[in-house]
């Protein structure tokens, strides 16, 4: 137990753990000490001096070591000659802190006056104006006028792009260092820094491309002035004009809580549009951060290419049709298909959608399948992390094994949280075939060959001795010992280099390891899937299962295929050949865009984006979280669950198709893990620390970021299924063949449907590439950054070759969703192109 100490702040008695800083102690009893540079998520630096307070300590008699008492028997308090900074001074027993004396007030007034000497005060055009800590503190503590000469004001550059996403206004910067400290301390992407000193100090970026970090948007939230702005929101609207709606980021399995700020926009013909995406505080999920993909990727929902009307194939052409006609046709063909109906849904859908999909499909005894390249969602439901799990609490005594995942690219906020857990003392084990960013914080690094993922983890189940095990690097033995001995242990498994088959083996190996080391059934213990989509876990929970590894037999034997929020033919044109063999198959696609699959469909149904409707996602940690409608829906589109329900109705069965809450009630009644849950429960919130205040009218003047307070639900962590898990039979999985092996890897910014429509991200997405080891490249005659052509699965593709020492020899990394279809490890042939692009 940490020692508690009592002190008095402005006459209020406070008891807080030893080591707490004054600012925090004061906030606990509702006293706001103004700060600029201090941020509760970062180490204090005492740079701005705004937080000055008068600190008195009990007088100690040097001879006796006892406190000196005054005539009333109370300890005598001795105040320092100077004021102390409340953000750097930890509390101690019996202290008396005065934050409201004349001396303190005068000091604060001077500091504000001083900070404003060279501040441009262009609040009217400043994006922070209205939610600006400098404005607020100037109003609350400032002098109202200045004694400095205007002629001496520094005039600096007002529009400095740090990268294509973040702009700096040098004049507005008050040099608090929050942005630099965030990048250094919190995310360890030290790509921006201070340059020069004193009045000439400025923020610069030293990366190429500029501000090369997937967390860059967060600096604009914590910057206490309008010095940092995002390219997306610059001059978008004044903060007080925005309405906010709670939502969940749909880009990755972390399930970051976000707030959509919306406003009517003349440029869009008076429609309400999303103006910006802000983090919403959820200390157990994303704290107050989100990644740039979540912040800037939402533009796909407002793309002009969205489908707006049902389409039916007539005379070989897709032609607009009425809903009634389209649904009627679909229903009759689905009924006719009976058990020949194959439904393919993806983790982009909400639980309600997936539930209805399964109900409809199983109503005619068809098969509802999950479109994914990862397995193990059934295992995470049994040996997943139990309720109460919080990466933010993990530290000493916890082992975290990250297997086959490049977390920085696959789930950036987990990367952040796990990195921090490792810094707090957690034992981080990173197992991957190639180096990843997370390794810098690992206590143990296990390097295996691509294809040996499961085998390596399985070896950890066996090897506990400190000796080297034949065929495995000694690191496996050390790591498995550390893992087994840890009090708590979590495994995150991803799909770096894996297809469905490899993923099956790996997830089973991970589950077995957890069971064998008894790291199951408790909070902060268990298995987490780093899925490729936001609600893959929910899809597994709703009972959808992946197709077989080959997929062809199922597609071929189906009489009708219902593809929802997936693009199997776009992702793998090879499948199309299979499909073309079966012209009689009736293909229905329900999506936001006219995908490659939709182009081949007999009926296309336009669905609504998650920003336009309600629903619930289940995150990778198995936390069920609600999202709310933010923007008005496109006319003539429906939410997925409603479309499915209407098809079902025309097929003669009743599914809930109006109120998503009612679908969720059915889920709660049918799916064991969801028992007892309801939309109302999901909307419950709890007290969170540090308190962020909310919106423009933020409560208090504590550290004032622009993250939103969580008012619409922190979500509920699902319990584990009670059936104990027998050791899973791990199918052995080996890669065959010689020559170069292509393996799929995930990159954050890809050409997927839900990313690419954001033009802002195009520079980060770049050309389609393939990464090779320089030695392989030399052998193949491939020069860095040159065009190469590759033959993969019988088809030809062009790509830019990246040469990278960290790629294992004999392997070519191919990013998923970038234009080269790759489902799993495969043999590839690479030839140097003729033209060298420099």
């Amino acid at each position, binding site marked *: 137990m940490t020692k508690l100490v009592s002190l008095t702040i402005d006459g209020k008695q406070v008891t807080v753990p030893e080591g707490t800083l004054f600012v925090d102690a004061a906030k606990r009893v509702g006293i706001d000490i103004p700060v600029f540079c201090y941020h509760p998520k970062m180490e204090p630096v005492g740079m701005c001096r705004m937080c000055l307070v008068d600190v008195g300590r009990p007088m100690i008699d040097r001879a006796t070591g006892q406190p000196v008492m005054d005539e009333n028997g109370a300890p005598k308090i001795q105040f320092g000659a100077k004021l102390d900074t409340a953000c750097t001074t930890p509390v101690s027993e019996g202290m008396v802190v005065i934050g409201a004396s004349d001396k303190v007030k005068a000091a604060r007034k001077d500091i504000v006056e001083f900070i404003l000497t060279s501040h441009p005060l*262009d609040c*009217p055009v400043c994006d922070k104006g209205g939610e600006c800590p400098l404005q607020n503190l100037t109003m609350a503590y400032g002098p109202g006028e200045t004694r400095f000469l*205007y002629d001496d004001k520094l005039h600096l550059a*007002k*529009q400095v792009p740090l990268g294509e996403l973040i702009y700096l206004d040098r004049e507005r910067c008050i040099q608090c260092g929050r942005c630099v400290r965030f990048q250094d301390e919190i995310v360890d992407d030290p790509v921006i820094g201070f340059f020069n000193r004193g009045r000439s100090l400025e923020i610069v970026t030293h990366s190429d491309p500029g501000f090369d970090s997937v967390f860059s948007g967060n600096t604009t939230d914590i910057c206490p002035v309008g010095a940092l702005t995002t390219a997306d929101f610059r*001059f978008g*609207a004044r903060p007080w004009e925005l309405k906010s709606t709670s939502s969940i980021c749909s880009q990755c399995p972390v399930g970051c809580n976000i707030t959509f700020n919306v406003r009517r926009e003349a440029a869009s013909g008076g429609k309400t549009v999303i103006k910006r995406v802000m983090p919403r505080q959820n200390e157990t999920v994303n704290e107050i951060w989100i990644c740039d993909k979540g912040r800037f990727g939402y533009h796909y929902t407002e793309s002009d290419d969205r489908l707006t009307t049902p389409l039916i194939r007539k005379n070989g052409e897709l032609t607009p049709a009425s809903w009634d006609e389209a649904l009627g046709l679909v229903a009759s063909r689905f009924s006719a298909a009976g058990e020949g109906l194959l439904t393919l849904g993806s983790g982009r859908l909400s639980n309600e959608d997936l539930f209805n999909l399964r109900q409809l499909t199983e109503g005619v005894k068809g098969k509802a399948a999950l479109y994914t390249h990862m397995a193990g969602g059934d295992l995470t439901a049994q040996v997943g992390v139990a309720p109460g799990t919080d990466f933010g609490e993990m530290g000493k005594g916890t082992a975290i094994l990250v297997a086959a995942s490049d977390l920085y690219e696959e789930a950036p906020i987990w990367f952040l949280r796990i990195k921090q857990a490792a810094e707090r003392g957690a034992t981080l084990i990173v197992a991957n075939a190639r180096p990843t960013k997370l390794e810098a914080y690992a206590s143990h690094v296990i390097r295996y060959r691509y294809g040996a993922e499961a085998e390596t983890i399985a070896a950890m189940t066996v090897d506990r001795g400190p000796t080297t095990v034949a065929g495995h690097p000694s690191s496996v033995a050390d790591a498995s010992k550390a893992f087994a001995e840890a009090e708590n242990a979590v495994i995150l498994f991803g799909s770096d280099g894996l297809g469905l088959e490899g993923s099956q083996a790996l997830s089973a190996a991970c589950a077995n390891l957890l069971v064998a080391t008894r790291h199951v059934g408790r909070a902060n213990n268990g298995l987490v899937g780093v899925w490729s989509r936001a609600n893959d876990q929910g899809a597994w929970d709703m009972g959808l299962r992946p197709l077989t590894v080959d997929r062809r037999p199922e597609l071929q034997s189906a009489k009708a295929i219902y593809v929802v929020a997936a693009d199997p033919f776009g992702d793998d044109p090879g499948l199309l050949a299979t499909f073309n063999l079966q012209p009689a198959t009736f293909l229905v696609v329900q999506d936001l865009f006219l995908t490659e699959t939709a182009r081949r469909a007999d009926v296309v149904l336009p669905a609504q984006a998650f920003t336009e409707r309600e629903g619930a996602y289940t995150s990778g940690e198995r936390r069920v979280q609600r999202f709310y409608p933010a923007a008005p829906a496109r006319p003539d589109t429906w939410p997925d669950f409603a479309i499915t329900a209407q098809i079902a109705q025309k097929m003669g069965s009743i599914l809930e198709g109006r109120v998503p809450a009612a679908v969720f009630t059915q889920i709660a009644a049918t799916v064991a893990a969801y028992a007892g849950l309801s939309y109302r429960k999901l909307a419950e919130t709890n007290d969170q620390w540090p308190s962020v205040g909310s919106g423009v009218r933020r409560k208090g003047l504590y550290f004032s970021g622009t993250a939103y307070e969580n008012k619409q639900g922190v979500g509920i962590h699902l319990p584990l299924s009670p059936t104990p898990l027998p050791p899973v039979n791990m199918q052995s999985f080996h890669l065959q063949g010689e020559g170069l092996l292509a393996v799929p890897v995930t990159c954050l910014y890809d050409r997927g449907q839900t990313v690419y429509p954001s033009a802002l991200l195009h520079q980060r997405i770049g050309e389609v590439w393939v990464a090779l080891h320089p030695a392989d490249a030399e052998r193949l005659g491939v020069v860095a950054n040159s065009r190469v052509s590759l033959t993969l699965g019988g088809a030809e593709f062009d790509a830019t070759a990246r040469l990278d020492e960290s790629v294992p020899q004999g392997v070519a990394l191919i990013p998923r969703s970038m234009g080269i279809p790759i489902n799993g490890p495969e043999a590839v042939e690479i030839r140097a192109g003729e033209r060298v692009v420099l």
Partner: protein
Amino acid sequence: MLKELGRGMWTTLRSMFEKPVTIEYPEVKRPVRARFKGRHELKRYDNGLEKCIGCSLCAAACPADAIFVEAAENTDEVRFSPGERYASTYEINMLRCIFCGYCEDACPTEAIVLGDNYELSFTDRRQAIYPKEMLLEPVRGEGKTTPQKTEPGEFIRSIPLMENPKD
């Protein structure tokens, strides 16, 4: 009794020779007072650049919620106003406006000014919404119309610089 009647008739007769207070509107228009608050105008600087910087403070101050502003970013190639920001959309709903002049007070650049024009009549609601083109005053003298192409670094400031008091 007759006396009263006679007085009344006298009054009538007398007023027939007085100067009438009514004027022949619309042929004749009465000049307005200096502080009259009529239809708004968006002002320009002498060089023709718009004073309005799209800050939306007028909209925030407006008690009738009559103003809608949307901003966009200036470039030296396509410049509407000094500094980085200009109003890409500026609308006032004259049916809502109560001519209180708060917008004028709130404006940091003295861009919006309530003018002399009181002749506001419409035959449908849409007409009552005055867009920026209607509100902007015409270019005077040497000024050029907006958007303008300007020299880099010439107009970097949205709000005129503060100056030291001169004695």
